[in-house]
């Protein structure tokens, strides 16, 4: 009767296939659906395909240090001979797994991250995880993740950044982190290794800044989606490979800028993207934006700009000062909405709009990402005051819901085009 003989996938295989399907769909869209593709982007497309579709691991020979937020200093991890793997997750497959473990209204990013841990299915499985106490959900998710048998260490993070006490508090946390990691690695933090790590990351950041400069051009040579992909790759890629690939990308962009090759249309409005981070492959909203003939020229998100923008500035190249400046970098300049007052974020968005000559702002919050949802009102008010058009969108990781969102985004983008015409 049943003449079909084949094995049923294990849950792990099924999860891998689902994730591969999510990944390849986005990658194919990026590869094929836009005009004037950049050939050096292929490294990044291929990287994501290798990791998420072919399940290649990248760091077999190294200790993998999982981080749950941008606040865990990569400089110290590299200095102690580890590889930072940022575990913020964008897969709907994992989100669904996490949904059974978290409240229904929780943020999809955290559900996906917890789901990923629950499945234990990693290409590069973290040997230890450091979780800064940033937002409530991440803070509490640590315990859940620990219950799956991971070694997880909480890193105290303050919720204000103006006060002296919080600055001191965070400096102490970072020192504690270095101590814990140094113990785990059985290595001592040396002045030279820390200095080299700071300079290496600083160099990577300088590449990002150069990349951003191109986006200020009137003829934008690179899609916002591609930039998100480049910055996302920094979560887990071998840093030297990333640097090399980004250098190549920059030289190609140089040529494109000279030859006036652009990925945007003649009337494409320029967009600053802010809010909950787009993390591969959840590029839902950026995809809708750029498929609706707009171009993302800058962003204010922790998966991209916020991760690269601020650099460690050392006055005295000794461990004490390097450690302090690292701490300050991760606290002082951070515009995460978990902080009590956050005028800085509003100022940053406005500044980005000015510097990148943007026509409007797309503010996206994950349903369940309470802090971004809460801050939405103040940001919208501030933008209105400044006369900057802004649209607020709420979304999650589910693949449906596209139609309604794209209608809203399209209408917004059309209104931006109209505004432009009126001005002329």
């Amino acid at each position: 009767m049943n003449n079909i003989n084949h094995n049923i996938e294990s849950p792990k295989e099924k999860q891998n296939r689902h994730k591969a399907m999510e990944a390849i769909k986005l990658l194919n869209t990026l590869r094929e659906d836009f005009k004037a593709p950049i050939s050096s982007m292929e490294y990044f497309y291929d990287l994501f395909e290798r990791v998420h579709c072919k399940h290649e691991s990248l760091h077999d020979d190294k200790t993998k240090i999982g981080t749950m937020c941008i606040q865990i200093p990569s400089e110290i991890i590299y200095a102690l001979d580890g590889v930072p793997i940022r575990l913020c997750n964008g897969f709907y497959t994992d989100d669904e797994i996490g949904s059974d473990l978290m409240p229904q209204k929780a943020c999809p990013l955290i559900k996906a991250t917890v789901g990923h841990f629950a499945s234990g299915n990693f290409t590069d499985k973290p040997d230890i995880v450091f979780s800064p106490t940033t937002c409530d959900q991440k803070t509490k998710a640590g315990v859940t993740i620990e219950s799956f048998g991971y070694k997880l260490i909480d890193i105290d993070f303050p919720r204000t950044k103006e006060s002296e006490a919080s600055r001191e508090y965070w400096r102490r946390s970072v020192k504690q982190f270095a101590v814990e990691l140094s113990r785990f690695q059985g290595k001592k933090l040396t002045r030279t290794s820390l200095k080299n790590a700071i300079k290496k990351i600083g160099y990577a950041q300088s590449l990002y800044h150069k990349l951003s400069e191109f986006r200020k051009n009137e003829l934008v040579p690179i899609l916002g989606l591609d930039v998100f992909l480049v910055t996302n790759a920094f979560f887990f890629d071998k840093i030297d490979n990333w640097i090399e690939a980004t250098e190549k990308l920059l030289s190609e962009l140089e040529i494109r800028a000279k030859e006036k090759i652009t990925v945007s249309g003649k009337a494409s409005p320029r967009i600053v993207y802010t809010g909950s981070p787009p993390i591969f492959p959840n590029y839902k909203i950026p995809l809708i934006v750029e498929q609706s003939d707009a171009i993302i020229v800058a962003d204010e998100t922790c998966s991209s700009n916020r991760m690269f923008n601020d650099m460690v500035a050392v006055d005295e190249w000794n461990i004490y000062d390097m450690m302090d400046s690292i701490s300050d970098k991760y606290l002082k300049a951070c515009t995460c909405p978990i902080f009590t007052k956050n005028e800085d974020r509003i100022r940053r968005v406005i500044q980005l709009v000015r510097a990148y000559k943007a026509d409007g702002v797309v503010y996206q919050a994950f349903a369940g990402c309470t802090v971004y949802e809460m801050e939405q009102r103040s940001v919208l008010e501030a933008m209105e005051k400044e006369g900057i058009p802004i649209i607020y969108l709420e979304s999650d990781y589910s693949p449906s819901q596209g139609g309604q969102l794209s209608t809203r985004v399209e209408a917004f983008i059309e209104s931006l085009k109209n505004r432009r015409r009126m001005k002329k």
Partner: protein
Amino acid sequence: MNYFVGIDIGSTAIKITVTDEHKRLVGFKINASGSMFYKYAKETLQSLLDELHISQDDIAYTVATGYGRKLFKEADENISEITANAIGAQEAAREYGEIKTIINIGGQDSKAISLDSEGNVVNFAMNDRCAAGTGKFLDVVAMNLEIGVDELSDYHFKSTGTPLSISSTCAVFAESEIIGLLGSNHSVEDIVSGVHYSIAKRIVKLVKRVGIKENVYFDGGPALNAGLVHAIENELGKKIFVPEYPQITTSFGAAVLACDAFKNMPEVEREF
């Protein structure tokens, strides 16, 4: 000898099954339903009986089902396709084991039926008025890929890359998406397996609404597509049972019911 007939008048095909007194399958016939159900149903029945050399008089009881069932006035009784499907599935899988969940993908709809241990329907779910992810959809896919529907399975198993999912299982939208994928030189194999997984995901969602209990039975024309079966099994994480003739489970169920109804009739009434 008494024979029993089950007639399933579906949206795309008319399925007629004849059984004997022991509920054994004697013969079946499938025909496109077209525009005139009633006429076609009668013709199909007649040609089936001719093939089997059974005279009209030997037919003891006829049960009609399917959404055109009320149009077939000659039937002694008519029942919903849900009930017929449940009965047919249990009978067809008697040797395999107790069926608790049925997945049915028809020409233009899909269903999930949950049964209790006595074989009664306790819950069922249907897709909303839409042919997304049904047999019709597979037809459209095959047509766009310029392959036969019966080849889909082979292509599925030949796929080596990541299945290329399509966002919409709506026949209308998917068409342009598939053409797009073809235009970018993706392999037909990966597209086919992607299509199968997209349907599988959709149907598994439907099944989850009624609850998944083993054993799972899969019928309807698309169940002939081993690639789709594979995809559903993977999505479900469970083995599913597909009968030899998955297209006729419902009409077979109707015939089985006819058989039972006849037996339960008072002796006198049988004469007429």
